[in-house]
């Protein structure tokens, strides 16, 4: 089955019809894998040839410590392709199958678990430019999108019809395909359930290039969710949408202790309030958020945010509060905090850097697990923050984060190990891992056995030659004929972590002492501003999605995230080419990245500084910059971007609001 009957695209930045890209000077292709794909001459496919550009695909939201990149994994992809059509995607997969090359599907690269990071090279399929919103059916209340469509763009498009997606991930700049493959639990999951309940149908392209249309009735349908790219690449999805509720809003209550807060949340859930979503945030998290908001809007206490979506809920909630004698905070503060649900990584600026664990846990075990984790963190010299999203059926998604300094590689590596210890502790307290990727592979033995076996059977059917995201999920591979990944094997990692977990307080305090020692010993003497900003960056990829230069070049090196990763790579000794350096200058200075940045990083001054450094070593191609600007000014893609507003939905003028409100 093909996707020809899906309908005409109504929104999309990378539609094949407007695909003409700026011809920046290119590096010659020296790699065999890339060369072979280029030779195929597949239409609507951009092959990323430059090694420097491929480097950007060797990580996702979280950074892989250098020691692991050197000794454990081959994270640098052999080739990266950006398909713009389902046909191009099929062709690439068929080619990979015939060559027996590993295919790593990638969305926006905003997950922290490493699911889209190669561990043994291969072809990364970057789906983020297949981002068309194909159809909004206002009568049937359905939405059909290409897998690379981002939730923010979808939300904006739907809002024109008074609609919204029932549930979305906390990263609004992640892709639909990415969330299908990695998780499916997020905002409003409490009331609307798992993503698989809201997606009506999807198209999966399996390695043989066949487009398979799966609907909720198909037994394989549910298995695609959380399959982490093992079965194929999701190409399109049809999602049930709902009207934006006209009544209701977020409510905020503050408590002196986490125990009281959790008790209150429990009472709300047990009552007849039927909230849309409930979030608990620990006092330590509130402290950082309040700092990021730049004011004393919040008292430093444990917080519960309850989102209500109808009149009845509001009335019942008011009654419940009266009964409990609880009083809520001002509405604007509640809205502040509720808005922050989309920016959990903002606090990364404080580290700079953040590590942690994300697990699923029964609500009745929450309190115990949090107490245990807090005690362990304190012993290891960490200050943990908790964020709990309640889910249906007595479960909750728990995020436990702590700040870490990415500027100090050694200390950061130890901190990364501590995050494994933390996950171990939480699992021992009754949790299970949420996503596997690379980091959680050590706990993959805690996945549901029958589900895992069913997935294995389906994979044998769809991907018998095992080219999809090879070396992940079922068994982690890596360098040294796969031995590199073995350190994350549950059979190895489990005893190690168990020893540590079983020997407190000695083991914890030793880890804490080690961190302290490394912090002192390897404290970087000088922190480049651009590298410091790169460490502060949440790597959420929002800047990529709004960058007009990216839409005009298809090259992520021109984006803020691309520039920051380049700066970090250079600081780490990665050699960059002259062409790569000159890509950094292809910027429209539109400040869209600064505007959309959740961490409010001062990007433009950082670019200026970085360009100064690059100009010293590589010169500056003023002609190419000029050519690029004139190309942009003539480009219909650019016209459309500007007409829509680069950051969709953002205020367009000083008074705030949309252009038409003036």
């Amino acid at each position, binding site marked *: 089955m093909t996707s020809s009957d899906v309908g005409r695209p109504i929104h999309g930045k990378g539609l094949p019809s407007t695909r003409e890209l700026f011809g920046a000077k290119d590096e010659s292709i020296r790699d065999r894998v890339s060369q072979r794909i280029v030779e195929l001459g597949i239409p609507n496919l951009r092959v990323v040839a430059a090694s420097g550009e491929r480097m950007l695909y060797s990580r996702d939201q979280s950074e892989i410590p250098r020691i692991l990149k050197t000794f454990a994994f081959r994270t640098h992809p052999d080739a990266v392709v950006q398909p713009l059509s389902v046909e191009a995607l099929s062709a690439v997969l068929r080619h990979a199958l015939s060559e027996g090359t590993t295919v790593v599907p990638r969305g926006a690269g905003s997950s922290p678990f490493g699911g889209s990071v190669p561990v043994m090279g291969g072809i990364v399929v970057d789906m983020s430019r297949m981002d068309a919103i194909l159809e909004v059916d206002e009568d049937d209340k359905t939405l059909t999108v290409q897998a690379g469509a981002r939730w923010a763009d979808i939300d904006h498009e739907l809002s024109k019809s008074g609609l919204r997606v029932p549930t979305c991930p906390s990263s609004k700049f992640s892709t639909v395909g990415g969330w299908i493959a990695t998780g499916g639990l997020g905002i409003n999951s409490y009331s609307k359930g798992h993503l698989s309940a809201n997606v009506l149908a999807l198209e999966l392209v399996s390695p043989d290039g066949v487009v398979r249309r799966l609907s909720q009735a198909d037994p394989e349908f549910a298995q695609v969710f959380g399959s982490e790219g093992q079965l194929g690449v999701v190409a399109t999805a049809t999602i049930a949408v709902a009207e934006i509720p006209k009544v209701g809003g977020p409510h905020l209550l503050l408590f002196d202790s986490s125990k009281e807060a959790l008790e209150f949340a429990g009472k709300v859930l047990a009552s007849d309030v039927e909230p849309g979503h409930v979030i608990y945030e620990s006092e330590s998290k509130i402290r950082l958020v309040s700092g990021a908001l730049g004011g004393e809007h919040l008292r430093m206490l444990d917080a519960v945010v309850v989102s209500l979506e109808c009149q009845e809920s509001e009335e019942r909630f008011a009654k419940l509060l009266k009964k409990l004698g609880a009083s809520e905070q001002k509405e604007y503060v509640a809205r502040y905090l509720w808005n922050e649900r989309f920016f959990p990584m903002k606090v990364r600026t404080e580290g700079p850097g953040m590590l942690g664990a994300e697990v699923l846990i029964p609500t009745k075990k929450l309190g115990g697990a949090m107490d245990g984790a807090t005690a362990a963190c304190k012993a290891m010299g960490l200050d943990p923050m908790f964020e709990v999203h309640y889910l249906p059926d007595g479960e909750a998604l728990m995020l436990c984060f702590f700040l870490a300094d990415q500027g100090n590689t050694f200390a950061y590596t130890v901190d990364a190990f501590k995050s494994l210890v933390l996950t171990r502790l939480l699992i021992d307290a009754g949790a299970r891992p949420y996503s596997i990727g690379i980091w959680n592979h050590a706990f993959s033995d805690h996945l549901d056995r029958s589900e895992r076996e069913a997935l294995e059977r389906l994979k044998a059917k769809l991907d018998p030659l095992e080219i999809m995201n090879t070396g992940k999920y079922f068994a982690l591979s890596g360098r040294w004929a796969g031995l590199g990944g073995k350190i994350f094997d549950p059979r190895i990692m489990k005893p190690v972590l168990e020893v540590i977990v079983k020997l407190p307080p000695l083991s914890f305090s030793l880890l804490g002492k080690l961190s302290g020692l490394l912090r002192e010993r390897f404290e970087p003497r000088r922190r480049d501003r651009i590298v410091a900003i790169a460490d502060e960056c949440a790597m959420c990829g929002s800047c990529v999605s709004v960058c007009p230069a990216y839409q005009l070049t298809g090259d992520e090196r021109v984006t803020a995230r691309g520039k920051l990763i380049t700066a970090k790579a250079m600081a780490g000794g990665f050699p960059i080419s002259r062409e790569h350096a000159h890509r950094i200058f292809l*910027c*429209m*200075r*539109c*400040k*869209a990245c600064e505007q959309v940045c959740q961490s409010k990083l001062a990007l433009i001054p950082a670019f200026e500084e970085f360009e100064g450094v690059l100009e010293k070593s590589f010169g500056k191609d*003023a002609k190419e*910059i*000029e050519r690029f*600007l004139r190309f*942009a*000014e003539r480009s219909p893609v*650019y016209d459309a971007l*500007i*007409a829509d*507003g*680069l950051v969709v939905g953002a*205020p*367009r*003028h*000083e008074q705030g609001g949309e*252009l038409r409100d*003036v």
Partner: protein
Amino acid sequence: MYERYHIPMKIVEPRAPRIPEFTISRADNCINCGRCEQACIYGVHKRSESDPREMADPVNHLCKNCFRCVAECPQRALTMSNGAEYCSLGRGVWTPLRISTIWGEAETGKIPVFGAGYSGMFSGPHFDGMWTDMSEIVRPTRDGIHGREFISTSVDIGRLPLSLQFTPSGALRTELPPLLEIPIPMVLDLTRLRIKSEWMIRGIASAAKHMKTYVFADIDSLTQDMLSDYGDCIVPVIPPGKDVSTIELPNGTGMVELTVETSWKNDSKTLLSRFPEMVVSFRVKARKGIEDTVLEMLDRDIAVAHIDYDDDGEEHGASKRHASESLLAIHSKLVSVGRRDAITVMAGGGLAAAEHVPKSILCGADIVSLDKALLMALECRDCVECAASSCPVDIAAASSEWVEGRVMNMVGAWRDQLLEVLGAMGIREVRRLRGEVGRALFFDKLEEEFKAALVGGGRR
């Protein structure tokens, strides 16, 4: 060989930063998209030369207030406002528009163009209430007003004999009084300038020399060098209190000017007898009854009555009659005694725009003298507190070449506008414009007539 009178003009750039009429500000939400650059046909918006990815600051003085950039900006980041400094320029008849128009004329020598989008009033007090006849403006021309036909802007200075008498043999018997002729009805008056440096005097004198007109300057401010360089175009002005019976005059122009004060009648007698070959001008402050003073001057054979109005073109003292009315009264009086051509009427003060020249002449002046407008041509900002040391444009330091170029540009542009007016009226000689009140409508008179007709008060 025939040579048509012509004032050479060339671009003379301003020395000080320009004061733009409109200020465009770019808000922080500008995305440097370049739409404004594409929209603006005047070149206000350009990408920065040092980094073309960013927009340069708007070149405000080029803005013509068309609002296209404001309308086209996808971010609504551009705001246009009236320039604050511009709005506070000048006072009285010296409005920001008039001052900046003179700046433009002095820079380019071109006739300013208003009209497109003109949102002002079509009438106002004094000169603004005068509408000159333009009935001939539709006459088809092949090569424009300046090429089509010869329009003379020459005027005479001195007493014209009212009749000529001849001997039977045909020789002229009438003794002709001294008579001068200049090719434009404009002279330059340095005596009223608030600041003058040697360079300014030299520059303005040099401009007068090139344009074959006269410059009026205090006799004490003139050096021997200046006199030897520009003596033939300088009219020395003798300040009050000098003993005219002993005064030495440089020979050159053949014209001298005194100021009317209590002893003027004696002074004039002394001067006329001492220098019978000289054109003697008397400068008189316009006050109530000025027309009678001019009549007295006529009786004493004074060649030129140089009437001084204040900077707003009004009479001094309590009367506050405007030059347009006052000149008309003088003209009518002279006509009524039948001796209009026996004296040259020169008017100065309040001439702030090119059209004030033909309007003054229409009201009865033979010649106008330009004063404050000269300073404006030199970028003067008409500060209330004026001193060379605190001058915002450091006017005293301007080179004489620059001064000369600016003044010639302005006077040239004013003459061209005079030609336009004459051409539109179908008048070929500026002498014939003098006192031609029938070729103009006076708004206040029309209004009175109209009101009278409405209330049935009858015709006047």
